[in-house]
């Protein structure tokens, strides 16, 4: 009999060990129906000194069946002295736990950019549950209006703001994307300036438009890029392969659709008085639209004209960057990255940049005139 008890000892201990796991049930884990998911976060700047931040959260309302209820969102808004206090107050306004794990878009009001960017992004970097791969943008007229806009094409389960930046939905050469980590490194580092897309809403809040961008230069001054400049920035930064060029020649007007492009640049500072930034652009594309009959045998001529147009456009944008002191492409960074460190490379670059001349070599090759000639 005694032997039998000993035999049972081992299974007994195993069972006890397993039973102990039952006590482990509630390690602060909240069920999914006790959580509400934040989709996007908006930060606006109020004019007041005491409560400078206005935080807007867009929440997805859980519903039993999507077919019946459609998409529903709800919003929480609070003004406070800091973002985290605002969120603490907002927590008392919902019956569920606010979950930031799915917040993928952060929108800043334009006014925010005039303040210390480090301070504002600090909250998002310090918190563990905000994704570093969330997208950052600037809201016009305010972050709140962008968040509250509900485009008609928006379906249940697919947030329109996500689709703008996610390369699965729309792919447009006008949309500049900036991840939070990318924004952080551009803010923190010298020699490369932060660039953010501008999200613009119409009056009736039925439309969001993302076609422009804002660059914050090293003097913390935000400068807006228009549609064309944003597209060319995307081309130069190798962010988008697709790019449309409108060629206007004396007797020949056509539009080229570029489908592959590669842009490289390097900095030549052999003479300190006349530094040169050499940019090479290689593009392959087809003619998309023309107002005259095109001739396949003349593709070579068309390519040359296209190259010339691109060269002109790019040089214009680069000159504008230089005049405004913008550096979203990281010329200063490249300068530091190709010269041995002496702890004052960036100061050197700040003196050199206004003196730089741009040499743009564009080489477009058109492969076809499209389906018709």
């Amino acid at each position: 009999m005694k032997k039998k008890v000993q035999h049972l000892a081992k299974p007994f201990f195993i069972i006890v060990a397993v039973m102990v796991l039952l006590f482990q049930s509630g390690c602060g884990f909240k069920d999914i129906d006790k959580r509400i998911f934040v989709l996007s976060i908006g930060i606006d700047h109020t004019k007041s000194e005491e409560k400078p931040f206005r935080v807007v959260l867009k929440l997805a309302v859980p519903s039993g069946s999507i077919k019946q209820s459609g998409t529903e969102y709800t919003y929480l808004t609070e003004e406070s002295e800091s973002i985290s206090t605002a969120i603490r107050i907002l927590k008392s306004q919902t019956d569920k736990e606010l979950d930031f794990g799915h917040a993928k878009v952060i929108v800043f009001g334009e006014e925010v950019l005039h303040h210390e960017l480090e301070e504002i992004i600090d909250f998002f970097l310090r918190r563990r549950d905000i994704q570093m791969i969330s997208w950052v943008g600037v809201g016009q007229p305010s972050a709140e209006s962008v968040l509250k806009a509900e485009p008609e094409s928006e379906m249940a389960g697919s947030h329109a703001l996500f689709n703008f930046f996610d390369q699965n939905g729309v792919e447009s050469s006008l949309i500049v994307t900036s991840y939070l980590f990318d924004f952080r490194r551009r803010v923190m580092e010298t020699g490369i300036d932060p660039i953010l897309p501008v999200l613009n809403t119409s009056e009736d809040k039925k439309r969001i438009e993302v076609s422009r961008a804002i660059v914050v230069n090293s003097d913390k001054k935000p400068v807006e890029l228009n549609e064309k400049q944003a597209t060319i920035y995307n081309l130069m930064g190798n962010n988008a392969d697709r790019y449309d060029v409108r060629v206007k020649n004396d007797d020949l007007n056509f539009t080229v659709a570029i489908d592959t492009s590669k842009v490289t640049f390097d900095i030549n500072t052999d003479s300190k008085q006349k530094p040169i930034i050499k940019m090479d652009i290689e593009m392959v594309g087809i003619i998309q639209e023309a107002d005259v009959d095109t001739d396949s045998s003349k593709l070579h001529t068309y390519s040359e004209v296209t190259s010339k147009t691109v060269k002109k456009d790019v040089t214009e944008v680069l000159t504008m960057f230089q005049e405004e002191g913008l550096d979203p492409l990281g010329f200063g960074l490249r300068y530091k990255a190709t010269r041995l460190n002496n702890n004052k490379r960036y100061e050197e670059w700040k003196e050199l940049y206004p003196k730089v001349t741009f040499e743009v070599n564009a080489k477009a090759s058109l492969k076809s005139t499209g389906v018709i000639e």
Partner: protein
Amino acid sequence: MSRYFFYLVFVNMIANVVASVPKILLEKKSEGAIASMLLSIFLGLALCYIVARFFNSFPGKGLPELTQKYLPRWFANLLLLFIASAWYIAGLITLVTYTFLLKRFLTPDMPLVWITSIFLLFLSYGVLMKTSSVLYTIELVLLCCIPINVLIMFKSYVTPELEWDFISESIMHAYELPSFTALSASTYLLVGGFNLIIFNRFFTKKHKITGKQILFIGMLGIGSLLTTYFIPIGMNGFESVEMIAYPWIITADTLRLNLGVIERILFVFLLLYLAISFLSLLIHWHVAIELYKSVITFKRLTYKGKNLTPLLFIGLFWFGSIQVTKYLTEYQLTLYTSYFYNLLLCSLIGMVGLFWFIVRRAKS
């Protein structure tokens, strides 16, 4: 060499990401981190070769058997206790770092002591296993982990957001003189072979380490060092990267598997490193407990023919770990870790002297 030797080396290489090696290296980024890394490859490989050659000539024997045979008894015991404590601390660093990580990222609502205890519960069982079982566990877990690890590394190199200009900017600091702290931290990657002091008991057959094998370890070592140091810089910038508390965790969060099962690699990464840091802990503490056992065994503490002294050590391990986890802050952890690596490197070089002495005694 047997393949198990390579597992011991690899675990140290991969697990360094969770230990404070990247943090220490990034703090020294403009004080000669690159030169130190370069030096550490040679130093680490030399150490690896020496330890493998030494134990090749004593198949089936661990360091305790050798020291107790060829050295005065009291000196051997003192030495073994010292080495055992070093291995215990090495494991402790992994444990505390990973506990902090879990607390920060996966289970923020759980008390620190709880997290440590759950870790310790599984470890207590693991370290008491036979040496051979420990090695089999390592093989199995490592083989499951390596594909995911390779995927994440591959992804980090091909992601378009990786800014090579930042990496190149950091290379522009290559001319700076190496720093000892950075050297010892990066050598830590390559000293996994030293676990042979206990695990050699398993290698009873005659083995020989060849030049090709050292070259293979060297290639992997260079690869993991470069990845450890340069990828966080490429993703987070150069000038402000040392402000990040956990460089590699944030780096893992900057990677995005667009159409993957999980979009945020961070969580895959954390679970992967949970397994790997467990392995690293298992190895270090198995060595530590075997060393302690070889020095201190209470004959009286026997129950049904089994000696219970190891359980006593496990109890001490628990006590020590929980106290340390409660006491340390993140800043202190990195600071003390760097001190530990400095001390470890010196002791390992001292150990080479010991090897030389033992070989001479054995010959005469």
